[in-house]
């Protein structure tokens, strides 16, 4: 059955979702001010109004634009719509997730978060891949699978929406950390320890925010991190390598040409952990390194000298 799919945002992911949905034979409406080079079957509008006619809407804007986009969306959608976002970020010091933003700014309740090691190019081209959808609404999963899933994309499901969003948002920061130590010549074993313990550290914070620990060890967390380390060309990885070469954070971000929100998320998470009495050795150390408060050798030393506990 044909679904009327709406996509808000024409960045890499928004375009990929629009192309994948059109390939599956659905009616696609893309909200964009400047989308070009798209298949003819995809309708483009610079006005959000036409999204009102859609059944399923993908919100595909960076987290920093999510509040504005959700606000605009809130003027046209209602309880009939199902909304999924693909942002890998959080909003503000209170670590607000994008589904929370959507719930606050719109009256839509059937909301979910699509995350995991899904890459825009693979999605657009229909190469085998997988993703995780966090939602409390099974009908939303069914519709997303029908819209973009199939033999080329396996979409797993979890009701731990917060876990998916927190894991997805913090993988960016861990990718920077791993890029940094890779540039310093770290062995694969060192990378594995940092990745695993970094994820464990983040999952402890996530649990205090209502997430399940297991979600961080699944596709949204470790799965996504493996994809990043294996070289899916994420900007976070390049940023980490630039920092490893001695670049200053502001300059490195400026030269990257794309926005990386991992550090902001990490700072807020560290602050949250401090208030809850949780330790964040890996995050705190690498934020200090990125801010020039600690050198690479001191950082490694500080982490390696810590008391070793049970896993």
């Amino acid at each position, binding site marked *: 059955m044909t679904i009327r799919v709406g996509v808000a945002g024409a960045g890499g992911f928004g375009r990929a979702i629009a192309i994948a949905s059109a390939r599956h034979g659905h009616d696609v409406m893309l909200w964009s001010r400047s989308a070009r080079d798209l298949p003819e079957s995809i309708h483009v509008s610079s006005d959000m109004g036409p999204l009102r006619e859609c059944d399923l809407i993908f919100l595909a804007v960076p987290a920093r634009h999510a509040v504005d986009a959700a606000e605009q969306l809130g003027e046209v959608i209602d309880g009939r719509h199902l909304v999924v976002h693909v942002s890998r970020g959080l909003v503000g010091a209170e670590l607000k997730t994008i589904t929370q933003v959507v719930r606050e700014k719109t009256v839509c*309740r059937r909301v979910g978060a699509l995350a995991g090691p899904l890459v825009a190019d693979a999605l657009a081209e229909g190469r085998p891949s997988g993703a995780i959808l966090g939602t409390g*609404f*099974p*009908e939303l999963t069914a519709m997303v699978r029908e819209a973009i899933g199939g033999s080329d994309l396996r979409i797993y499901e979890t009701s731990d929406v917060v876990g998916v969003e927190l894991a997805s948002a913090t993988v960016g920061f861990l990718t920077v950390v791993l890029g940094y130590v890779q540039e310093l010549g770290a062995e694969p074993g060192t990378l594995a320890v940092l990745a695993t313990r970094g994820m464990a550290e983040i999952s402890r914070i996530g649990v205090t925010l209502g997430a399940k620990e297991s979600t961080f060890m699944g596709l949204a967390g470790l799965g996504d991190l493996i994809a990043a380390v294996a070289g899916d060309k994420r900007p976070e990885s390049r940023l980490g390598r630039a920092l490893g070469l001695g670049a200053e954070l502001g300059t490195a971000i400026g030269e990257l040409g794309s926005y990386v929100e991992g550090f902001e998320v990490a700072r807020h998470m560290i602050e949250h952990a401090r208030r809850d009495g949780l330790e964040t050795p890996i995050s705190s150390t690498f934020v200090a390194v990125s801010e020039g408060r600690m050198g690479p050798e001191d950082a490694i030393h500080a982490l390696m000298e810590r008391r070793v506990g049970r896993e």
Partner: protein
Amino acid sequence: MLKRFLSERPLRLPHLKPYVPRPSDPSIFWFNSERDDIVSDVVSRICGALETDRSHLELALNDAAFHEIRRLEKQRDDEARDRLGYWRSMIRRVAKMDDSEQRRVLHTIVTSMARDVAGNFDPRVYRFARQAVPRLIGGVMEPRRLSKDLMATAPTALDRVLRVQGDLEHLQQLQSRGSLVFVPTHSSNLDSIVLAQALETAGLPPAIYGAGKNLFTNPIISFFMHNLGAYRVDRRIRVSLYKDVLKLYSQVMIERGYHSLFFPGGTRSRSGMIERHVKLGLLGSAVEAFTTNQVRRIDRPVWFVPTTINYALVLEAETLIRDWLTEEGQARYIIEDDEFSRIDRWVAFFRKVVGMRGACIIRFGTPIDPFGNDVDETGQSVTPTGRVIDPGGYVEHRGKPVADPARDAAYTRELGEVLARRYEQDTVLMSTQVVAHVLFRALVQATPGMDLFARLRLRGEIALEQEEVCKAIGEAQERLGDLERKGRVLLSDVVKEDAPSELLERALGYWNGYHDSTAARLEGNRVVLHDPSLLLYYQNRLVPFAEDIADPEQLEAACEIQKLGAHR
């Protein structure tokens, strides 16, 4: 024996002539004429869902027999003697029964459960209760005025103690357009009585509610509850079928337009904190009632009215906090030995609160639809920007309203979160709670590094300068005032208007003489903390705001207090 008789067969008045409801009567007046139909609707829906699959049906029967045998073996009372034989014989035979016998047994069990749950409504009892109950309670409060109160039409002592707040006109307009579901916070067994009186005072219709079967053992309460439409909930029964009957009974009542009341917290807040986690069973029944009406194209909306019940003095405070502090408190749903079961404590309680201006405030919040949207005076759901939306859209799938229990369960979880937020915003902070918070925070400050239980043992060991306490109360009042202006909480008039020293004196006066040991007492120029557990109970209402109303020196203690909320 009498207890069992009363709880199973509450007294009813004989009917010489059936009452014919008038169009202006509240919906509950139609209940008796519809009761059999409601029971058979519940039975047919439950049996219909199970009868199509033998394995489900057999599982349901086995589950019922297993749980009932387990319960009755523990009970070892008259009921056990009567019923154990039936269940033991049934569990032996279930697998050997043919389909028709299984269906017949299921029908018998479900019918018996549904009849046990269903209440009664007697307009004569209703009229008597609305006239006499407030005057009798007023009489207990002020015995010298009893004869005057019974005769007069002037406000009773109860009217003076009870304050009703909220946009009552808004609710009055909605009552004839759909089903109102009142979902209050729960602190005391007095809540349902106080709330019934508040509905009467506010010009709102009576609502049906589920009352624990343990309350039906008191013959007077049993008589009133049963004859005012309350349905009985036996929390000892763990059978899945019974839970289905309860939920469906509530759902069918709401579908048919009966205004309802249930406590989403499930049980009284043991800690005194504002409920943050709500139970989803009955809440879900109301959401499903909305869906069912939509699917059947019946235009009868369902609206929820978040309601907070705020007491300056809580009848069962000592038992509740003791229960919270002990391990069993987390799971003990039925307390039969608390202050509610002791008439002397009722009398002491009512006599204590009689002099308290607005000792109990019932706050009816803005009504919301099942999806958390505000509802305007005409019953339309509106977005925060004022756009009118159709709530029916939430249960549509590709343009058609459809039943989907998984979806409705997700909506119910979200509604629970909305209610928790509303409870916080609509809580009216009372004098005892504010003073208790200031005193308890000072106790935490004075005992750094000490654990909660060690602090609670410091009875009479901590004394604070009265002047310092008053200063801290004044600052707390000021900061709470800021929070109220931001819409985060509400304050009672005395918290807003009293000078700090008056507020302190008022709170100490409330505690002194009602509770077995007073929470704190003024000794010379010092405030001595006598019962930190009681202070903890009353101050717990302020847990979500502790950090917001602390100055930098108090922040560490406030953080520690706020962390108590993590275990709510």
